[in-house]
């Protein structure tokens, strides 16, 4: 018997199900199909994973856009104090009628976070340094003029000024204003440009002044006693010793008075070192709201990507183990099938 004859015979004797089985199966198959499982169960395996990835990506992008649109200022804050203060200052400067060239002055921001001031009734040394950037040489000139005007307006004066223009314009000045108005001065000066750096230092001098005052009173009393004794009959040696002691006390008293006057003067006037400079090319300038929103969204997306990468790195070993288990089970099932069908 040839292969062809075998095939013909096999096909000619193709098995047919018995009537009883046919009736049973057709009756069964005519029953209503059970309700389809929930959509979640139907989305199995790769299909579910295939949906999960774009859904997760969509959620990540939507979150980034939402954060970028609703909280764009976060980027500016994190970019540095200058950008943040400049942004808030823009509105305040506009409303306060700040002249052009200083429109990005952070006066409002500084008003919200006012620098510390001196304590009324106490002698304190107030030293502040302020570095501001302005748009260009015109703005630098105008800001310098305004700084000088502010110092005079507050009852102070300009101790020194250095002004230079070129590729990068700079102006450096030392202003002295009454300590009681130092905070006001710093606030107003801050509005002349974008704050790059600031420093305020306050040293209490009252204790030292009080000690000096007490010592002066002691010396006065001692000098009075010595003068009184020198008016009586004394031997030559005693008179000479008392006169020398009174001279020393008078010299010390004079020195202490001078020192007290200097300390009082130092406490009366605050020193403010103001440095102005034109903005560097390419320096961060606060963009429009849309730019900031986009920056913020991209930043959030970047963080989300970092998070996703971290999760992927953390889960990679587990995924490898799962893949190995899956492959092992598949191979075992194949071997099991081969064994079952090969032996039957």
């Amino acid at each position, binding site marked *: 018997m040839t*292969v062809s004859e075998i095939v013909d015979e096999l*096909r000619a*004797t193709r098995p047919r199900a*018995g009537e*009883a089985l046919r009736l049973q199966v057709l009756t069964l198959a005519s029953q209503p199909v059970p309700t389809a499982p929930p959509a979640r169960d139907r989305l199995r395996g790769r299909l579910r994973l295939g949906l999960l990835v774009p859904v997760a990506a969509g959620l990540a992008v939507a979150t980034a856009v939402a954060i970028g649109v609703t909280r764009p200022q976060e980027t500016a804050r994190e970019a540095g104090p200058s950008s943040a203060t400049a942004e808030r200052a823009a509105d305040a400067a506009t409303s306060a009628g700040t002249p052009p060239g200083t429109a990005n002055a952070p006066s409002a921001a500084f008003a919200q976070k006012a620098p510390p001031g001196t304590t009324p009734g106490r002698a304190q040394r107030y030293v502040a340094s302020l570095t501001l950037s302005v748009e260009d040489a015109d703005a630098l000139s105008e800001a310098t003029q305004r700084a000088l005007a502010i110092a005079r307006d507050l009852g102070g004066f300009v101790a020194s000024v250095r002004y230079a223009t070129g590729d990068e314009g700079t102006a450096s000045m030392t202003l002295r204003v009454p300590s009681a108005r130092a905070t006001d001065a710093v606030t107003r000066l801050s509005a002349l440009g974008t704050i790059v750096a600031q420093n305020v230092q306050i040293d209490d001098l009252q204790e030292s002044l009080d000690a000096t005052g007490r010592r002066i009173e002691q010396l006065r009393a001692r000098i009075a006693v010595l003068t009184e004794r020198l008016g009586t009959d004394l031997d030559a040696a005693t008179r000479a010793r008392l006169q020398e002691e009174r001279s020393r006390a008078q010299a010390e008293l004079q020195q202490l008075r001078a020192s007290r006057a200097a300390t009082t003067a130092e406490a009366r006037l605050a020193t403010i070192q103001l440095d102005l400079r034109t903005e560097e090319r390419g320096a961060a300038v606060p963009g429009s709201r849309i730019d900031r929103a986009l920056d913020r969204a991209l930043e959030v997306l970047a963080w989300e990507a970092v998070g996703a990468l971290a999760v992927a790195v953390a889960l990679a070993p587990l995924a490898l183990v799962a893949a190995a288990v899956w492959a092992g089970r598949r191979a075992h099932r194949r071997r099991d099938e081969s064994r079952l*069908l090969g032996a039957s």
Partner: protein
Amino acid sequence: MTLEQPLATAAPRTLAEAAELHLDDVFGYLLYLTRDRETAEDLAGSTFEKALRLWGRFDPRRGTARTWLLGIARTTALDWFRAESRRRRREESVAPPERVEEAFVEGLSPELEAALATLSAAEREVLVLRVVLELDGDATARVLGISPTAVSTRLSRALKRLEEKVTAP
């Protein structure tokens, strides 16, 4: 003789239609696999019970109803083989193995019937799918979960062995 012409069947819309069209195929496949008519009938019933539960997941774009039903039949048969294997291991220790019925297909010559009995289930299933039911190579490969090349190899080997057994004195 041609082995590459699948049966032209329209896609059934209901399981009842699919059962009417493919019950004989499912039964024939199970009969060749188990070599026992009663077992094949039981397994065919189980196959369509499963098919009823799974009908909602049947997607005609991914394969024909016949391939889908034969796949379910194969899974059902493998479960049965596993159970049988366990049962035999338990019973062989206390009783001799049952004699296998040789005449399981009506109308076959005794020589061919005897030769078929010497083939393994793996060889018989590829024979029934490719020769008796005339599935093409791809569909057979899909049902068996192997490559079309492996199907061809297994079929050639089965036919050769069958020829040798039938022509042997």
